[in-house]
């Protein structure tokens, strides 16, 4: 990839001399860095998750979505394909589509009723020729030249992505073979069935969410619940995979019995509590349904998608950054067509683990807030990400590793020219 130097000659943005084992606070808190991320990353050579095809199954179905912070409409066009265009009228910039989802024949901006077809082409301008020979648009105005800004779209196994760039490589190349394999283990060809959404705002920098899922070290330490019930323990069969570029990652683990935890590992995990039991342990059951050695995988697909396969509770998490210090997370929970009523209920019960109120999820949200609070209140510092020095960046065999975070920043610095 070409490294384009950043626009900053300012000494404010100097990376610490130690290299990738340090991450300076300005990466997470600086508004100019954030603006450059929108331009180079979210609007750059990346495939951004925007929807599941199951959300727009029929011609005219649409949802509101985002590419980075930018609002877009995802619509099933007359041609049967999914189209993605900016939710901004070319006339006076109004964000014209206000419903979260729906079905339409066309999109009409309510301000002056400029109309667009399902592909985002401008169809009609009221009083274009004026009234009684007066007013109207210039004679040379052509609707064909004034469509909504359209993005390039690709779909893979029912998941819809969009990009602003003409240069973004084909999606399968973009993921790389290893991450693609894990992606296809979850999206295994069965038709998806949407079970509902969560939406929440998180007072932290959007990259912290990627890092949290490229940080297997925290899983056994923060998430007492997981550890207590043997869902994940230090010494479990597990992986922290990175793609060759460092931007994507997959954290995986195989469920094991808490009874097998060694005394030495128990001592390190303050969370471990012997003999804690659930009144309803069945919600932690794993019903094997995937061709994968992992009962849990969390895939971070750069720049805005997390694919959660936490045993049988499945979800998309879409990052919508709203500034350096805050982002919105939109979750789309799903199952598969053919799930019987009990399987759907099992997925919903297991959903208690994740989401804004999840046994695990709420802890991650709080931890990310604490990190941002720390940087805002004691500014000008840096993070220490030095675990696992034998693996400078990339895939590591150990969970006590920050190699995937370092790999992500190697890539980020290259894209940002920093």
């Amino acid at each position, binding site marked *: 990839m070409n490294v384009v130097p950043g626009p900053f000659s300012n000494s404010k943005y100097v990376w610490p001399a130690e290299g990738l084992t340090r991450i300076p606070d300005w990466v997470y808190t600086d508004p100019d860095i954030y603006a450059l991320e929108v331009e180079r990353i979210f609007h750059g050579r990346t495939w951004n998750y925007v929807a599941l095809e199951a959300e727009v199954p029929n011609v005219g179905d649409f949802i509101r979505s985002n590419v980075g912070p930018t609002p877009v409409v995802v619509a099933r066009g007359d041609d049967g394909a999914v189209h993605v265009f900016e939710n901004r009228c070319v006339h006076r910039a109004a964000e014209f589509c206000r419903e*979260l989802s729906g079905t339409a024949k066309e999109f009409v901006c309510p301000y002056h009723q400029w109309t667009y077809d399902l592909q985002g082409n401008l169809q009609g301008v009221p009083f274009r020729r004026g009234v009684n020979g007066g007013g109207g648009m210039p004679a040379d105005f052509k609707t064909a030249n004034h469509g909504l800004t359209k993005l390039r779209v690709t779909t893979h196994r029912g998941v819809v992505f969009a990009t602003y760039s003409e240069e973004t490589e084909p999606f399968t190349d973009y993921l790389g073979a290893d991450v693609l394999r894990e992606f296809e283990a979850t999206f295994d060809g069965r038709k998806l069935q*949407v*079970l*509902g*959404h*969560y*939406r*929440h*705002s*998180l*007072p932290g920098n959007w990259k912290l969410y990627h890092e949290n899922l490229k940080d297997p070290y925290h899983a056994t330490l*923060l998430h*007492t*619940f997981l550890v*207590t019930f043997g869902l994940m323990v230090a010494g479990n069969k597990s992986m922290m995979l990175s793609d060759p570029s460092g931007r994507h990652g997959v954290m995986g683990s195989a469920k094991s019995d808490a009874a097998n935890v060694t005394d030495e590992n128990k001592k390190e995990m303050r*969370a471990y*509590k012997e003999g*804690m039991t*659930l*009144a*309803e342990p069945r*919600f932690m059951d794993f019903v094997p349904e995937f061709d994968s050695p992992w009962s849990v995988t969390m895939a971070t697909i750069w720049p805005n998608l997390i694919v959660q396969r936490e045993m049988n509770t499945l979800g998309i998490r879409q990052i919508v950054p709203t500034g350096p210090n805050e982002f*919105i997370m939109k979750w789309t*929970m799903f199952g598969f067509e053919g799930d019987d009523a009990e399987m*759907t*209920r099992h997925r*919903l*019960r297991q*959903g*208690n683990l994740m*989401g*804004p*109120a999840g*046994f695990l*999820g*709420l*802890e991650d*949200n*709080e*931890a990310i*807030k*604490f990190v941002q609070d720390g940087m805002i209140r004691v500014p000008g510092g840096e993070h220490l990400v030095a675990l696992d020095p034998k693996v400078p960046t990339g895939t590591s065999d150990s969970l006590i590793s920050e190699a995937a975070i370092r790999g992500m920043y190697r890539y980020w610095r290259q894209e940002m020219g920093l």
Partner: protein
Amino acid sequence: MSDPRLEALLLRAEIEAFNADYAAALDEQRLSDWVEMFTEDAFYVILSKENHDRGMPVGLIYCENRGMIQDRAFALKKTAMFAPRYMRHMISNLQIVSVAGEEVRARANYITLQVLFDNPVATVHQVGIYLDVFRRVDGALKLAERRCVYDNLLVDNALCLPV
């Protein structure tokens, strides 16, 4: 005494007292007392109005019986990590929807206010409606179902305590 207006008033007063006790248990974070307010087979879910209106079942908290409600209370007390906070529940606009045998269907609006210790502002954490089924167990009203349908779709960071 069989004046139906008096009976309706008594039932209304009983449910209002129940909701006040419910709010107090949560506000004081007496979660084991909160668990006891449900029947064995109770269904308790917190779901967005967006999901509710579209018939989508996903909830922030999804409990199919009192065992799961108890696990939630247990996990929040013993395992969950979140910043300390105070919550205050306001429950009002009680409507009795129907009475059939031992089951009473009712609804009430709710607001939960959240205070974090380093911020002077109490924020509206949730605003919504309880869609309830009460059942009399050994003379006392218990919740056989409480669907907390919240209007503010965008949850402020995390929902740490039940509503």
